């Protein structure tokens, strides 16, 4: 039995339950997704676009799906300490794949902004959600179709025309369950013309006794002259795998920053599809991954220049230690007519041990003469001269190595526009390299209310 068939079976035999506990707008997309999966398999290692990562293996364990929407009692709002110091955020949670508001979420909201359960908004305001839900995601991709077939909830973020959100939005994804579980997470982000928002997403696993899989599809619509930042930090456990697929579309004069940070996890695969459909867009795509143990981290980017005078910049960096492995496959596509495009891509990797492995495959596809494009990929080791220089000043070898690995990540951290988050990231990266539990503000201990434990 293929990994996919167990989920198709869940859908076929529990369709009524799934639909009863979701929203009509989402239900309308299920059959099409189901049909596309007929006779298919999830991509295996070696499939085009999946050379080093088997999605089949990722989904193969017998994960449960919470189709009955059983509430898992996680007292997030009381005890969760995932706050970023010196930064006040509008916070909400996704526990497994259910939306949970923080106690103060609604009274902090600027006029007209929606940050809420996707199923709830889709029920209350189907016209709004149907305009965006499942419009960007590519259901020809088996993992996307699987998500569309099963997704029952998620998060809707809607920032109406001209609204500039001063406070960043923070979404905390949490896994906690009493059995192996797949979280079918779905995010729709709409930033209308002239609006501005920053979103911080953190992935955590509270109870790492069980295996988890996060299947996450994000659709982001960035309107004319709008600005959206997405910072996505994965700090889960080695029992948690993640396949996150972002589909973003930028209208003219818009700006998008996406920065994905993998600190801890099991097997991680991130896809970034960005379409620049209007003129004069700026797109910044950063990625940083730190691997150790048996972690595997695969980042895949596809930036599509469909219009003129756009600028895109990609920087992916990876430090791999011990037995960890990494992959990067990145594409820049410049369509005919997308003249005066500037598109850059850089992938730099550091192997800190003899057994760590990195696979990198940069690609350019250009159908236009008047462009400036470049790509580059390097994989190397720590600079022996720098290491000796530091040791000669008395810095112990392990500390010198750690400092150099941290220094390697500095330019990806500098891509973050929120100062408080930049400081926080430096701290998290430092802790990560010093081998400490790199959870936000020691949340590994304080996630659960200590009084109850």
């Amino acid at each position, binding site marked *: 039995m293929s990994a996919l068939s167990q989920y198709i079976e869940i859908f076929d035999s529990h369709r009524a339950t799934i639909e009863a506990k979701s929203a009509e707008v989402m239900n309308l997309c299920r059959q099409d997704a189901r049909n596309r999966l007929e006779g298919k398999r999830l991509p295996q290692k070696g499939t085009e676009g999946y050379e080093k990562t088997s999605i089949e293996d990722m989904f193969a364990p017998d994960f449960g799906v919470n189709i009955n929407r059983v509430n898992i009692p996680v007292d997030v709002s009381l005890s969760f300490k995932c706050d970023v110091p010196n930064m006040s955020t509008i916070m909400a949670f996704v526990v497994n794949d259910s939306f949970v508001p923080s106690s103060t979420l609604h009274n902090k909201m600027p006029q007209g902004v929606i940050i809420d359960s996707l199923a709830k908004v889709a029920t209350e305001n189907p016209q709004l959600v149907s305009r965006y839900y499942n419009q960007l995601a590519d259901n020809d991709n088996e993992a996307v179709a699987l998500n569309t077939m099963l997704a029952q909830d998620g998060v809707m973020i809607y920032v109406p025309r001209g609204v500039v959100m001063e406070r960043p939005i923070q979404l905390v994804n949490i896994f906690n369950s009493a059995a192996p579980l797949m979280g079918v997470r779905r995010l729709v982000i709409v930033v209308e013309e002239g609006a501005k928002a920053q979103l911080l997403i953190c992935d955590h696993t509270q109870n790492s006794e069980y295996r988890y899989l996060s299947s996450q599809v994000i659709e982001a619509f960035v309107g004319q002259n709008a600005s959206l930042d997405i910072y996505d930090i994965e700090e889960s456990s080695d029992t948690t795998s993640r396949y996150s697929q972002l589909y973003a579309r930028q209208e003219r004069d818009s700006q998008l920053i996406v920065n994905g940070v993998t600190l801890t996890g099991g097997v991680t695969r991130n896809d970034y599809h960005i379409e620049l459909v209007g003129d004069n867009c700026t797109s910044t795509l950063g990625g940083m991954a730190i691997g150790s143990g048996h972690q595997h981290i695969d980042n895949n980017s596809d930036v599509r220049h469909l219009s003129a005078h756009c600028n895109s910049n990609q920087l992916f960096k990876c430090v791999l230690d011990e037995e960890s492995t990494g992959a990067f496959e990145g594409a820049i596509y410049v369509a005919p007519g997308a003249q005066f495009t500037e598109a850059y891509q850089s992938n730099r990797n550091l192997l800190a041990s003899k057994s760590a492995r990195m696979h990198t495959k940069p690609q350019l596809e250009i159908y236009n003469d008047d462009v400036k494009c470049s790509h580059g990929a390097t994989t190397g080791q720590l600079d022996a001269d720098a290491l000796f*220089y530091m040791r*000669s000043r008395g*810095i112990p070898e392990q500390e010198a190595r750690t400092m150099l690995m941290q220094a390697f*990540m500095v330019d990806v951290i500098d891509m973050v526009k929120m100062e408080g988050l930049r400081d926080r990231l430096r701290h998290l990266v430092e802790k990560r390299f010093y081998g400490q539990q790199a959870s936000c503000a020691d949340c590994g201990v304080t996630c659960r209310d200590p009084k109850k434990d």
Partner: protein
Amino acid sequence: MNMDNILLDVKNLRAGIEGKEILKGVNLTVRPGEVHAIMGPNGAGKSTLSSVLAGDPSFIVTEGEVNFHGVNLLELAPENRSHEGLFLSFQYPVEIPGVSMVNFMRAALNAKRKYFNQEPLSASEFLKLMRQKREVVELDNKLASRSVNEGFSGGEKKRNEIFQMAVLEPRLSILDETDSGLDIDALRIVAGGVNKLKTSDNATIVITHYQRLLDYIKPDFVHVLYKGRIVRTGGPELALTLEERGYDWIKQEIDNK
């Protein structure tokens, strides 16, 4: 000068890289308060000697002993040689993008304090120390906030070396071609810094091609290193002779033996 006290005692040191022997039995004794100059033609092994003493892992020591105030230097990791009081001013200081000078020096200083079971310096003590030591070589505060040596001019890099030396207060400093790439003003500042740091308890080994630096840092002994051995030792006058006559006469003398 204390003649009984030996700070560094190098005996029959042989070392090389990738199977090629470069040092072929070096003997050298340095006492506290002394300044030694090591001169010699290109390829004689001057920089190899300084690298081997500092513990550069790319060189392999095949024979000999190095005693550093009672400690077997060759057994120590580079970081512990530093803690024990050895300092190498690099001919080519390494640029380390992403590591700030402040973090670099704090890590170095606190590692040394830890080695001697001392508490780390508080932030204000540390900054005060940095400020004091910067004055020794007139190092701009702006450089201190940048990444280690990144984008520094040749002169700034060498001043930064002496600044680090001032902070770490070594017992023995080895200045490897500190004069290379310096204009006369930078040279004066760097040499002035070295002289300010000189006490009767510490010692300096100056490795140089030219007499020029020795006008500013006065040596007590001048050694000529040639083909991996110290082939001649004299007083400051030897440097002047070399400046006048070059190395050929010494080469001929040795090669004809």
